[in-house]
């Protein structure tokens, strides 16, 4: 998209407005994921979070990663999680989510973690920080199937193993315990 011009009247770059909006949506929905009491809604909030993240990838000039994000995370993983939620919902399992007793401690730990990382990011000089670069799809493909061909193959084997393992785990034994 031909963004980058300054927005009229307010004088802020489009990219910055979009970044702030997407970041707000992402963080808000991420908080909903961990705080909502209805598990299906928190799953749906996770989808919103992923969609906002895909938007941020577009801002970072990585459209292929953004498309993969939508395809893999929203189209596959989220749907899988929604499936699992619907399968594990019965009389025995309440729909409402309950927090652990240590949730207060967890909140403190998370805030401390965020602060520490933020301070570290601010204090570090990242060296040659340049302008944002556009990643061309064909260069990416060339690198993926050239330099990264071994990791690529390893990942495909991993995926195969995961599929077989998941099928084995989730398959119901015919004479299993009822």
């Amino acid at each position, binding site marked *: 998209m031909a963004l980058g011009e300054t927005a009229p009247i307010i004088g802020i770059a489009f990219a910055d407005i979009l*970044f702030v909006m997407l970041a707000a949506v992402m963080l808000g929905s991420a908080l909903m994921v961990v705080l909502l009491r209805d598990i299906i809604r*928190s799953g749906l909030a996770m989808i919103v979070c992923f969609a906002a993240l895909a938007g941020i990838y577009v801002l970072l000039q990585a459209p292929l990663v953004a498309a993969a994000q939508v395809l893999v995370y929203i189209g596959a993983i989220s749907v899988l999680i929604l499936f699992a939620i619907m399968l594990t919902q019965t009389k025995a399992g309440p729909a409402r989510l309950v927090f652990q007793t240590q949730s207060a401690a967890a909140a403190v730990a998370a805030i401390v973690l965020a602060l520490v990382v933020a301070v570290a990011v601010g204090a570090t000089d990242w060296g040659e920080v340049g302008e944002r670069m556009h990643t061309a799809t064909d260069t990416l493909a060339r690198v993926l199937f050239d330099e990264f061909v071994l*990791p690529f193959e390893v990942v495909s084997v991993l995926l195969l193993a995961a*599929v077989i*393992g998941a099928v084995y785990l989730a398959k119901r034994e015919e004479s299993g315990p009822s």
Partner: protein
Amino acid sequence: MINSLDAYLVLSALLFAIGTFGFLARRNAISMLMSIELMLNAVNLAIVAFGAFIPGLAVDASVIAIIVMAVAAAEATVGLAIVIAIFRNRRTPLVDEYDAMRR
């Protein structure tokens, strides 16, 4: 200030912290898996941000991000399969009732 590597990294850190909180605070196994997904996404965001701002990393970062996604897909598949397998035996998705090892 906004359009800089730091901003993206802080965003990533916040997302990671939220994921951490969710993982520690939730009792439901699927909810914990979702928190792990959030953390993985935070890491991915950091990787892509580095790639966008540091010229030498641009292509590598995208490749790594895509590989991370593939691994995340594998992780989610196996994780959910385990949750469903346990759920089938114990009839509950709450992790603190998964105490087979303790007995």
